[in-house]
Protein backbone atom coordinates (compact mmCIF):
# COMPACT_ATOMS: atom_id res chain seq x y z
CA UNK A 1 0.00 0.00 0.00
CA UNK A 2 0.98 3.64 -0.29
CA UNK A 3 2.30 5.43 2.78
CA UNK A 4 -0.70 7.77 2.71
CA UNK A 5 -3.04 4.79 3.13
CA UNK A 6 -1.16 3.72 6.24
CA UNK A 7 -0.78 7.17 7.83
CA UNK A 8 -3.39 9.29 9.63
CA UNK A 9 -1.50 12.55 9.12
CA UNK A 10 1.02 13.14 6.35
CA UNK A 11 2.03 16.77 5.96
CA UNK A 12 4.82 19.22 5.24
CA UNK A 13 5.53 22.64 6.69
CA UNK A 14 8.34 25.11 7.20
CA UNK A 15 10.37 24.67 10.34
CA UNK A 16 11.69 28.17 10.15
CA UNK A 17 12.22 29.90 6.79
CA UNK A 18 15.18 27.72 5.78
CA UNK A 19 13.87 24.20 6.34
CA UNK A 20 11.04 21.93 5.27
CA UNK A 21 9.80 19.33 7.71
CA UNK A 22 7.64 16.30 6.86
CA UNK A 23 5.47 14.68 9.53
CA UNK A 24 3.98 11.21 9.23
CA UNK A 25 1.68 10.19 12.08
CA UNK A 26 -0.22 6.93 12.57
CA UNK A 27 -3.16 5.91 14.74
CA UNK A 28 -2.37 2.19 14.73
CA UNK A 29 0.68 1.36 16.91
CA UNK A 30 1.19 -1.93 14.98
CA UNK A 31 1.66 -0.08 11.70
CA UNK A 32 3.92 2.52 13.30
CA UNK A 33 6.22 0.01 14.98
CA UNK A 34 6.33 -2.23 11.90
CA UNK A 35 7.47 0.67 9.76
CA UNK A 36 9.98 1.77 12.37
CA UNK A 37 11.46 -1.74 12.56
CA UNK A 38 11.71 -2.05 8.77
CA UNK A 39 14.21 0.85 8.76
CA UNK A 40 12.90 1.74 5.34
CA UNK A 41 12.73 5.44 6.20
CA UNK A 42 16.32 6.64 5.92
CA UNK A 43 18.41 9.32 4.27
CA UNK A 44 18.98 7.28 1.14
CA UNK A 45 15.22 6.96 0.59
CA UNK A 46 14.50 10.65 1.21
CA UNK A 47 17.38 11.63 -1.04
CA UNK A 48 15.89 9.48 -3.81
CA UNK A 49 12.28 10.67 -3.34
CA UNK A 50 13.19 14.36 -3.33
CA UNK A 51 16.24 14.40 -5.63
CA UNK A 52 18.29 16.03 -2.90
CA UNK A 53 21.77 15.16 -1.61
CA UNK A 54 21.83 13.32 1.72
CA UNK A 55 23.76 16.09 3.43
CA UNK A 56 20.77 18.41 3.07
CA UNK A 57 18.69 16.06 5.23
CA UNK A 58 19.16 17.22 8.82
CA UNK A 59 16.84 14.94 10.82
CA UNK A 60 14.96 11.66 10.48
CA UNK A 61 13.50 10.90 13.91
CA UNK A 62 10.85 8.51 15.25
CA UNK A 63 8.89 9.54 18.37
CA UNK A 64 7.03 6.59 19.87
CA UNK A 65 4.68 8.56 22.14
CA UNK A 66 3.28 10.37 19.11
CA UNK A 67 3.28 7.27 16.85
CA UNK A 68 5.05 9.24 14.19
CA UNK A 69 8.26 10.13 12.46
CA UNK A 70 9.68 13.35 11.14
CA UNK A 71 11.99 14.18 8.25
CA UNK A 72 13.63 17.60 8.02
CA UNK A 73 15.71 18.93 5.14
CA UNK A 74 17.10 22.33 4.22
CA UNK A 75 15.55 24.43 1.47
CA UNK A 76 17.58 25.67 -1.48
CA UNK A 77 15.51 28.87 -1.56
CA UNK A 78 14.29 30.37 1.71
CA UNK A 79 10.60 31.01 2.35
CA UNK A 80 8.98 33.89 0.54
CA UNK A 81 11.83 35.21 -1.53
CA UNK A 82 12.50 35.11 -5.30
CA UNK A 83 12.33 31.54 -6.71
CA UNK A 84 10.47 30.12 -3.71
CA UNK A 85 7.39 28.14 -4.74
CA UNK A 86 5.81 27.35 -1.40
CA UNK A 87 5.98 30.11 1.23
CA UNK A 88 4.54 27.96 4.04
CA UNK A 89 6.12 24.76 2.77
CA UNK A 90 2.70 23.15 3.11
CA UNK A 91 2.62 21.17 -0.16
CA UNK A 92 6.00 19.47 -0.17
CA UNK A 93 4.76 16.15 1.18
CA UNK A 94 3.45 14.57 -2.03
CA UNK A 95 6.60 12.67 -3.08
CA UNK A 96 6.64 10.95 0.34
CA UNK A 97 2.91 10.13 0.20
CA UNK A 98 3.27 7.87 -2.77
CA UNK A 99 5.95 5.71 -1.21
CA UNK A 100 5.04 2.01 -1.44
CA UNK A 101 5.16 0.28 1.95
CA UNK A 102 4.67 -3.40 2.85
CA UNK A 103 2.89 -4.00 6.13
Amino acid at each position, binding site marked *: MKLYDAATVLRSKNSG*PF*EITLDVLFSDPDIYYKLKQQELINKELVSRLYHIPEDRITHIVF*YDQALGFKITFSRTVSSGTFLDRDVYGAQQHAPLMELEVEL
Partner: protein
Amino acid sequence: MLKESFRILAPCGMLGYGFPKASFMKGMELKPDAIVVDAGSTDAGPHKLGAGTAIVSRQACKKDLEIMITEGVKAGIPVIIGSAGGSGARVHVEWTQSIVMDILQERGIGGIKLAMIRADIPHEVVEAKQQAGQCEPLGLSVAPLTPERLQATSGIVAQMGHEPIMEALAAGADIIICGRAYDPSPFAAVAMSRGYDAALAYHLGKILECAALSAEPGTTKDCMLGTLKNDSFIVQPLSDARRCTAVSVAAHTFYEKEHPYLLHGPGLVLNLEECQFTELGDGSVEVSGSKMELTPVYKIKLEGAMKVAYRTFVVAGVRDPLLIARIEEVEELVKQQVQSDYQEVPQDDYRIHFINYGLNGVLGELEPRRTPAHELGVVLEVVAKTQELANAICSSLRSTFLHYGYEGRKATAGNLAFPFAPSDVPFGAVYEFSVYHLMEVTDGLEMFPIDYIEVKP
Protein backbone atom coordinates in the same frame (compact mmCIF):
# COMPACT_ATOMS: atom_id res chain seq x y z
CA MET B 1 4.83 28.74 48.73
CA LEU B 2 3.61 27.12 45.53
CA LYS B 3 -0.09 27.22 44.87
CA GLU B 4 -1.49 23.77 44.23
CA SER B 5 -2.09 24.60 40.58
CA PHE B 6 -1.68 27.44 38.13
CA ARG B 7 -3.95 27.97 35.15
CA ILE B 8 -3.25 29.67 31.86
CA LEU B 9 -5.99 30.47 29.35
CA ALA B 10 -4.84 30.46 25.71
CA PRO B 11 -7.62 32.04 23.62
CA CYS B 12 -6.23 31.30 20.14
CA GLY B 13 -3.10 30.26 18.31
CA MET B 14 -2.55 33.64 16.71
CA LEU B 15 -3.82 36.94 18.05
CA GLY B 16 -6.39 38.15 15.53
CA TYR B 17 -7.45 34.70 14.32
CA GLY B 18 -10.53 34.88 16.57
CA PHE B 19 -12.07 32.38 19.00
CA PRO B 20 -15.58 31.41 20.16
CA LYS B 21 -16.63 33.65 23.04
CA ALA B 22 -18.36 30.69 24.70
CA SER B 23 -15.06 28.77 24.92
CA PHE B 24 -13.28 31.82 26.30
CA MET B 25 -15.95 32.43 28.96
CA LYS B 26 -15.89 28.76 29.93
CA GLY B 27 -12.16 29.22 30.48
CA MET B 28 -12.78 32.34 32.60
CA GLU B 29 -15.25 30.38 34.77
CA LEU B 30 -12.39 28.02 35.62
CA LYS B 31 -10.55 30.98 37.22
CA PRO B 32 -7.33 31.18 35.21
CA ASP B 33 -4.26 32.89 36.68
CA ALA B 34 -3.22 34.47 33.36
CA ILE B 35 -4.34 34.98 29.76
CA VAL B 36 -1.52 34.52 27.27
CA VAL B 37 -1.57 34.66 23.47
CA ASP B 38 1.06 34.30 20.78
CA ALA B 39 0.90 36.78 17.91
CA GLY B 40 4.02 35.80 16.02
CA SER B 41 5.14 33.78 13.06
CA THR B 42 7.71 33.81 10.27
CA ASP B 43 5.41 31.57 8.22
CA ALA B 44 4.05 34.23 5.94
CA GLY B 45 7.53 35.03 4.67
CA PRO B 46 10.05 37.83 5.16
CA HIS B 47 8.06 40.83 3.92
CA LYS B 48 6.13 41.38 7.20
CA LEU B 49 9.36 41.95 9.06
CA GLY B 50 11.05 43.72 6.17
CA ALA B 51 8.20 46.10 5.42
CA GLY B 52 6.99 46.45 9.03
CA THR B 53 3.44 45.29 8.35
CA ALA B 54 1.22 43.11 10.52
CA ILE B 55 -0.02 39.57 9.83
CA VAL B 56 -3.62 40.25 10.84
CA SER B 57 -5.78 43.34 10.37
CA ARG B 58 -6.07 45.98 13.09
CA GLN B 59 -9.78 45.17 13.35
CA ALA B 60 -9.14 41.45 13.90
CA CYS B 61 -6.43 42.12 16.48
CA LYS B 62 -8.63 44.60 18.34
CA LYS B 63 -11.60 42.25 18.39
CA ASP B 64 -9.57 39.53 20.13
CA LEU B 65 -7.82 41.90 22.50
CA GLU B 66 -11.03 43.60 23.57
CA ILE B 67 -12.43 40.50 25.23
CA MET B 68 -9.03 39.36 26.57
CA ILE B 69 -8.30 42.72 28.19
CA THR B 70 -11.74 43.46 29.61
CA GLU B 71 -12.02 39.98 31.14
CA GLY B 72 -8.38 39.90 32.26
CA VAL B 73 -8.65 43.28 34.03
CA LYS B 74 -11.97 42.29 35.61
CA ALA B 75 -10.38 39.11 37.01
CA GLY B 76 -7.21 40.94 38.05
CA ILE B 77 -4.91 38.59 36.12
CA PRO B 78 -2.06 39.43 33.72
CA VAL B 79 -2.63 39.51 29.96
CA ILE B 80 0.49 38.75 27.92
CA ILE B 81 0.96 39.07 24.16
CA GLY B 82 3.96 37.32 22.57
CA SER B 83 5.65 38.51 19.35
CA ALA B 84 3.36 41.52 18.89
CA GLY B 85 2.14 42.24 15.39
CA GLY B 86 3.61 39.03 13.98
CA SER B 87 7.26 39.94 13.61
CA GLY B 88 7.75 41.66 16.96
CA ALA B 89 9.80 44.65 15.80
CA ARG B 90 9.40 48.12 17.36
CA VAL B 91 6.77 49.13 14.79
CA HIS B 92 4.75 45.99 15.55
CA VAL B 93 4.94 46.56 19.33
CA GLU B 94 3.79 50.17 18.85
CA TRP B 95 0.95 49.07 16.58
CA THR B 96 -0.26 46.63 19.26
CA GLN B 97 0.24 49.21 22.01
CA SER B 98 -1.96 51.72 20.18
CA ILE B 99 -4.72 49.11 19.86
CA VAL B 100 -4.45 48.31 23.59
CA MET B 101 -4.56 52.03 24.49
CA ASP B 102 -7.66 52.50 22.31
CA ILE B 103 -9.40 49.65 24.10
CA LEU B 104 -8.48 50.96 27.55
CA GLN B 105 -9.73 54.42 26.64
CA GLU B 106 -12.95 53.26 24.97
CA ARG B 107 -13.79 50.98 27.89
CA GLY B 108 -12.73 53.47 30.54
CA ILE B 109 -10.23 51.03 32.03
CA GLY B 110 -7.50 52.55 34.19
CA GLY B 111 -5.27 51.98 37.21
CA ILE B 112 -3.18 49.43 35.41
CA LYS B 113 0.42 49.07 34.29
CA LEU B 114 1.52 48.28 30.73
CA ALA B 115 4.91 46.83 29.84
CA MET B 116 6.39 46.89 26.36
CA ILE B 117 9.42 44.64 25.88
CA ARG B 118 11.58 45.51 22.87
CA ALA B 119 13.26 42.81 20.84
CA ASP B 120 15.04 44.98 18.26
CA ILE B 121 18.74 44.32 17.90
CA PRO B 122 20.86 47.24 16.64
CA HIS B 123 22.93 46.54 13.51
CA GLU B 124 26.13 47.57 15.27
CA VAL B 125 25.59 44.94 17.95
CA VAL B 126 25.23 42.22 15.32
CA GLU B 127 28.28 43.53 13.48
CA ALA B 128 30.41 43.49 16.64
CA LYS B 129 29.22 40.02 17.62
CA GLN B 130 30.04 38.76 14.13
CA GLN B 131 33.52 40.14 14.35
CA ALA B 132 33.92 38.44 17.72
CA GLY B 133 32.80 35.13 16.20
CA GLN B 134 29.68 35.13 18.38
CA CYS B 135 27.04 35.14 15.65
CA GLU B 136 26.57 32.10 13.41
CA PRO B 137 24.06 31.23 10.65
CA LEU B 138 21.33 28.85 11.81
CA GLY B 139 20.99 26.16 9.15
CA LEU B 140 22.75 24.89 6.08
CA SER B 141 21.19 27.25 3.56
CA VAL B 142 21.49 30.57 5.41
CA ALA B 143 23.73 32.86 3.38
CA PRO B 144 26.71 34.48 5.11
CA LEU B 145 25.86 37.87 6.56
CA THR B 146 28.20 40.13 4.64
CA PRO B 147 28.51 43.83 5.62
CA GLU B 148 26.45 44.67 2.49
CA ARG B 149 23.63 42.28 3.40
CA LEU B 150 23.65 43.47 7.02
CA GLN B 151 23.41 47.08 5.88
CA ALA B 152 20.58 46.26 3.48
CA THR B 153 18.62 44.54 6.27
CA SER B 154 15.82 46.84 7.38
CA GLY B 155 15.34 45.62 10.92
CA ILE B 156 16.63 42.81 13.11
CA VAL B 157 14.73 41.23 15.98
CA ALA B 158 15.67 38.47 18.40
CA GLN B 159 13.47 35.90 20.11
CA MET B 160 13.32 36.63 23.84
CA GLY B 161 13.11 33.98 26.52
CA HIS B 162 11.16 34.07 29.78
CA GLU B 163 13.60 36.40 31.62
CA PRO B 164 12.41 39.88 30.50
CA ILE B 165 8.76 38.80 30.77
CA MET B 166 9.33 37.61 34.34
CA GLU B 167 10.96 40.96 35.07
CA ALA B 168 7.91 42.83 33.76
CA LEU B 169 5.65 40.62 35.87
CA ALA B 170 7.80 41.26 38.95
CA ALA B 171 7.47 45.00 38.25
CA GLY B 172 3.71 44.59 38.51
CA ALA B 173 2.75 44.83 34.84
CA ASP B 174 -0.88 43.91 34.13
CA ILE B 175 -0.62 43.88 30.34
CA ILE B 176 2.66 42.88 28.70
CA ILE B 177 3.29 43.45 25.01
CA CYS B 178 6.35 41.48 23.98
CA GLY B 179 8.39 42.12 20.88
CA ARG B 180 9.62 38.98 19.14
CA ALA B 181 9.56 36.11 21.60
CA TYR B 182 10.25 32.39 21.46
CA ASP B 183 6.63 31.25 21.08
CA PRO B 184 6.40 29.29 24.38
CA SER B 185 8.28 31.90 26.48
CA PRO B 186 5.37 34.20 27.48
CA PHE B 187 3.46 31.15 28.75
CA ALA B 188 6.52 29.73 30.53
CA ALA B 189 7.38 33.10 32.08
CA VAL B 190 4.06 33.61 33.81
CA ALA B 191 4.17 30.11 35.37
CA MET B 192 7.87 30.32 36.26
CA SER B 193 7.25 33.67 37.98
CA ARG B 194 5.08 31.76 40.45
CA GLY B 195 7.76 29.15 41.03
CA TYR B 196 6.62 26.37 38.70
CA ASP B 197 9.07 24.01 37.02
CA ALA B 198 10.68 25.55 33.93
CA ALA B 199 10.62 22.38 31.81
CA LEU B 200 6.92 21.75 32.42
CA ALA B 201 6.15 25.45 31.94
CA TYR B 202 7.97 25.54 28.59
CA HIS B 203 6.40 22.30 27.37
CA LEU B 204 2.95 23.61 28.34
CA GLY B 205 3.81 26.89 26.57
CA LYS B 206 4.77 24.98 23.43
CA ILE B 207 1.31 23.41 23.38
CA LEU B 208 -0.70 26.49 24.40
CA GLU B 209 0.93 28.84 21.89
CA CYS B 210 -1.16 27.07 19.25
CA ALA B 211 -4.25 27.00 21.55
CA ALA B 212 -6.56 24.14 20.50
CA LEU B 213 -4.38 22.87 17.65
CA SER B 214 -3.30 19.87 19.71
CA ALA B 215 -6.91 18.82 20.33
CA GLU B 216 -9.04 16.75 17.96
CA PRO B 217 -10.30 18.24 15.74
CA GLY B 218 -7.42 20.67 15.97
CA THR B 219 -7.65 24.39 15.35
CA THR B 220 -5.77 27.57 16.22
CA LYS B 221 -9.13 29.36 16.41
CA ASP B 222 -10.42 27.96 19.70
CA CYS B 223 -9.37 28.19 23.34
CA MET B 224 -7.36 25.81 25.50
CA LEU B 225 -6.71 25.78 29.24
CA GLY B 226 -3.40 24.63 30.70
CA THR B 227 -3.12 23.68 34.38
CA LEU B 228 0.34 23.39 35.88
CA LYS B 229 0.92 21.28 38.94
CA ASN B 230 4.10 20.43 40.84
CA ASP B 231 5.22 17.57 38.64
CA SER B 232 2.85 17.55 35.67
CA PHE B 233 0.49 19.68 33.64
CA ILE B 234 -2.95 19.17 32.13
CA VAL B 235 -4.25 20.51 28.83
CA GLN B 236 -7.97 20.79 28.33
CA PRO B 237 -9.98 22.05 25.33
CA LEU B 238 -12.76 24.50 26.21
CA SER B 239 -15.23 23.49 23.53
CA ASP B 240 -17.32 20.32 23.84
CA ALA B 241 -16.60 19.64 20.17
CA ARG B 242 -12.91 18.92 20.91
CA ARG B 243 -10.94 16.39 22.93
CA CYS B 244 -7.25 15.96 23.60
CA THR B 245 -5.80 12.48 23.24
CA ALA B 246 -2.43 11.21 24.44
CA VAL B 247 -1.31 10.93 20.82
CA SER B 248 -2.71 14.31 19.71
CA VAL B 249 -0.84 16.11 22.49
CA ALA B 250 2.36 14.08 22.01
CA ALA B 251 2.26 14.71 18.27
CA HIS B 252 1.86 18.44 18.71
CA THR B 253 5.59 19.03 19.16
CA PHE B 254 6.07 17.77 15.59
CA TYR B 255 4.33 20.81 14.21
CA GLU B 256 6.62 23.33 12.47
CA LYS B 257 9.65 22.04 14.37
CA GLU B 258 12.74 20.40 12.95
CA HIS B 259 12.81 17.71 15.65
CA PRO B 260 9.86 16.02 17.39
CA TYR B 261 11.19 16.01 20.97
CA LEU B 262 14.27 18.23 21.14
CA LEU B 263 13.26 21.88 21.08
CA HIS B 264 15.82 24.68 21.10
CA GLY B 265 14.86 27.94 22.77
CA PRO B 266 16.73 30.99 24.06
CA GLY B 267 19.45 29.63 26.34
CA LEU B 268 17.74 26.25 26.68
CA VAL B 269 16.95 22.89 25.12
CA LEU B 270 13.70 21.16 25.97
CA ASN B 271 13.84 17.36 25.88
CA LEU B 272 10.49 15.57 25.67
CA GLU B 273 11.80 12.10 24.81
CA GLU B 274 10.77 10.56 28.14
CA CYS B 275 7.41 12.32 28.48
CA GLN B 276 4.29 10.48 29.52
CA PHE B 277 0.91 11.47 28.13
CA THR B 278 -2.14 10.22 30.03
CA GLU B 279 -5.77 10.66 29.02
CA LEU B 280 -7.88 11.66 32.02
CA GLY B 281 -11.17 10.53 30.50
CA ASP B 282 -12.81 13.96 30.21
CA GLY B 283 -11.08 15.08 27.00
CA SER B 284 -8.06 16.40 28.87
CA VAL B 285 -4.52 14.98 28.92
CA GLU B 286 -1.93 15.03 31.70
CA VAL B 287 1.73 15.34 30.75
CA SER B 288 4.78 14.58 32.88
CA GLY B 289 8.47 13.90 32.39
CA SER B 290 9.37 17.04 30.40
CA LYS B 291 13.05 17.87 30.84
CA MET B 292 15.03 21.01 30.12
CA GLU B 293 18.70 21.85 30.06
CA LEU B 294 20.27 25.28 30.04
CA THR B 295 22.85 25.69 27.28
CA PRO B 296 26.44 26.46 28.40
CA VAL B 297 26.39 29.68 26.35
CA TYR B 298 23.20 31.75 26.15
CA LYS B 299 22.27 32.22 22.48
CA ILE B 300 19.35 34.12 21.00
CA LYS B 301 17.87 33.61 17.55
CA LEU B 302 18.01 36.65 15.29
CA GLU B 303 15.64 37.33 12.40
CA GLY B 304 16.08 40.03 9.81
CA ALA B 305 14.79 40.74 6.32
CA MET B 306 16.09 42.77 3.42
CA LYS B 307 14.58 44.05 0.20
CA VAL B 308 16.12 42.17 -2.72
CA ALA B 309 14.14 43.31 -5.78
CA TYR B 310 10.81 44.48 -7.20
CA ARG B 311 8.46 42.09 -8.95
CA THR B 312 5.92 42.18 -11.78
CA PHE B 313 4.04 39.04 -12.79
CA VAL B 314 1.43 37.71 -15.20
CA VAL B 315 -0.90 34.75 -14.70
CA ALA B 316 -1.80 32.90 -17.89
CA GLY B 317 -3.19 29.57 -19.04
CA VAL B 318 -1.97 27.25 -21.78
CA ARG B 319 -4.33 24.66 -23.30
CA ASP B 320 -2.63 23.98 -26.65
CA PRO B 321 -1.15 20.44 -26.52
CA LEU B 322 1.60 21.32 -29.01
CA LEU B 323 2.84 24.11 -26.74
CA ILE B 324 2.36 22.08 -23.52
CA ALA B 325 4.57 19.35 -24.97
CA ARG B 326 7.51 21.74 -25.25
CA ILE B 327 6.63 24.43 -22.68
CA GLU B 328 10.01 24.68 -20.92
CA GLU B 329 11.90 24.81 -24.20
CA VAL B 330 9.66 27.61 -25.51
CA GLU B 331 9.99 29.53 -22.24
CA GLU B 332 13.76 29.42 -22.52
CA LEU B 333 13.57 30.75 -26.10
CA VAL B 334 11.18 33.53 -25.06
CA LYS B 335 13.54 34.50 -22.24
CA GLN B 336 16.49 34.64 -24.63
CA GLN B 337 14.48 36.78 -27.05
CA VAL B 338 13.65 39.31 -24.32
CA GLN B 339 17.26 39.42 -23.14
CA SER B 340 18.37 40.06 -26.68
CA ASP B 341 15.73 42.82 -27.10
CA TYR B 342 17.00 44.50 -23.89
CA GLN B 343 20.71 44.32 -24.56
CA GLU B 344 21.19 47.85 -23.24
CA VAL B 345 20.04 46.76 -19.77
CA PRO B 346 22.70 44.88 -17.77
CA GLN B 347 21.53 41.28 -17.30
CA ASP B 348 22.22 41.49 -13.54
CA ASP B 349 19.53 44.17 -13.20
CA TYR B 350 16.64 41.77 -13.71
CA ARG B 351 15.72 38.08 -13.65
CA ILE B 352 13.02 36.15 -15.53
CA HIS B 353 11.34 33.10 -14.09
CA PHE B 354 8.43 30.86 -15.09
CA ILE B 355 6.29 28.74 -12.78
CA ASN B 356 4.39 26.01 -14.65
CA TYR B 357 1.42 24.75 -12.64
CA GLY B 358 0.31 21.39 -13.98
CA LEU B 359 3.92 20.44 -14.64
CA ASN B 360 6.09 21.16 -11.58
CA GLY B 361 4.72 24.43 -10.22
CA VAL B 362 4.64 23.41 -6.56
CA LEU B 363 7.72 21.22 -6.22
CA GLY B 364 10.02 22.59 -8.92
CA GLU B 365 13.16 20.48 -9.11
CA LEU B 366 11.87 18.21 -6.34
CA GLU B 367 8.95 17.01 -8.55
CA PRO B 368 9.30 13.29 -9.27
CA ARG B 369 6.45 13.16 -11.86
CA ARG B 370 7.13 15.16 -14.97
CA THR B 371 4.06 14.39 -17.05
CA PRO B 372 2.21 17.63 -17.83
CA ALA B 373 -1.52 17.97 -17.33
CA HIS B 374 -3.84 18.77 -20.27
CA GLU B 375 -3.68 22.43 -19.35
CA LEU B 376 -1.04 24.47 -17.56
CA GLY B 377 -1.19 27.55 -15.39
CA VAL B 378 1.85 29.66 -16.13
CA VAL B 379 3.16 32.47 -13.98
CA LEU B 380 5.51 34.80 -15.85
CA GLU B 381 7.66 36.50 -13.22
CA VAL B 382 10.19 39.28 -13.53
CA VAL B 383 12.16 40.69 -10.61
CA ALA B 384 14.33 43.74 -11.15
CA LYS B 385 16.23 46.52 -9.43
CA THR B 386 13.29 48.89 -9.79
CA GLN B 387 9.55 48.44 -10.18
CA GLU B 388 9.70 50.38 -13.43
CA LEU B 389 12.25 48.00 -14.93
CA ALA B 390 10.30 44.96 -13.71
CA ASN B 391 7.18 46.38 -15.38
CA ALA B 392 9.01 47.05 -18.65
CA ILE B 393 10.68 43.65 -18.89
CA CYS B 394 7.51 41.82 -17.86
CA SER B 395 5.47 43.65 -20.48
CA SER B 396 7.95 42.62 -23.14
CA LEU B 397 8.12 39.06 -21.79
CA ARG B 398 4.32 38.75 -21.92
CA SER B 399 3.97 40.05 -25.48
CA THR B 400 6.92 37.99 -26.72
CA PHE B 401 5.51 34.81 -25.16
CA LEU B 402 1.99 35.57 -26.44
CA HIS B 403 3.15 35.76 -30.04
CA TYR B 404 6.22 33.55 -30.05
CA GLY B 405 6.38 31.42 -33.22
CA TYR B 406 7.80 28.19 -31.81
CA GLU B 407 8.57 25.32 -34.14
CA GLY B 408 5.48 23.34 -35.15
CA ARG B 409 3.00 25.97 -33.96
CA LYS B 410 -0.51 25.84 -35.47
CA ALA B 411 -2.23 28.40 -33.22
CA THR B 412 -0.78 31.49 -34.80
CA ALA B 413 -3.11 33.97 -33.08
CA GLY B 414 -1.72 33.66 -29.52
CA ASN B 415 -0.07 31.27 -27.06
CA LEU B 416 -1.53 32.43 -23.74
CA ALA B 417 -5.00 32.72 -22.20
CA PHE B 418 -5.04 35.64 -19.75
CA PRO B 419 -7.76 35.49 -17.10
CA PHE B 420 -7.47 39.21 -16.36
CA ALA B 421 -7.10 42.50 -18.19
CA PRO B 422 -4.75 44.18 -17.64
CA SER B 423 -2.58 41.10 -17.46
CA ASP B 424 0.53 42.52 -15.78
CA VAL B 425 0.52 42.88 -11.99
CA PRO B 426 3.13 45.18 -10.43
CA PHE B 427 3.73 43.45 -7.11
CA GLY B 428 6.08 45.76 -5.24
CA ALA B 429 9.10 44.82 -3.15
CA VAL B 430 10.40 41.28 -2.71
CA TYR B 431 12.14 40.52 0.59
CA GLU B 432 14.42 37.79 1.81
CA PHE B 433 15.36 36.53 5.28
CA SER B 434 18.91 37.86 5.37
CA VAL B 435 19.46 37.26 9.07
CA TYR B 436 18.64 33.92 10.66
CA HIS B 437 21.47 33.56 13.10
CA LEU B 438 22.27 32.49 16.63
CA MET B 439 23.97 35.22 18.62
CA GLU B 440 25.76 34.83 21.95
CA VAL B 441 24.63 37.11 24.76
CA THR B 442 25.53 37.51 28.44
CA ASP B 443 22.06 36.57 29.65
CA GLY B 444 18.39 36.55 28.73
CA LEU B 445 17.82 40.16 29.80
CA GLU B 446 20.67 41.95 28.02
CA MET B 447 19.00 42.64 24.67
CA PHE B 448 15.38 43.19 25.72
CA PRO B 449 14.71 46.58 27.35
CA ILE B 450 11.32 47.23 28.95
CA ASP B 451 9.22 50.40 28.90
CA TYR B 452 6.35 50.87 31.33
CA ILE B 453 3.24 53.02 31.13
CA GLU B 454 0.99 53.62 34.12
CA VAL B 455 -2.57 54.11 32.91
CA LYS B 456 -4.33 56.42 35.37
CA PRO B 457 -7.56 55.27 37.03
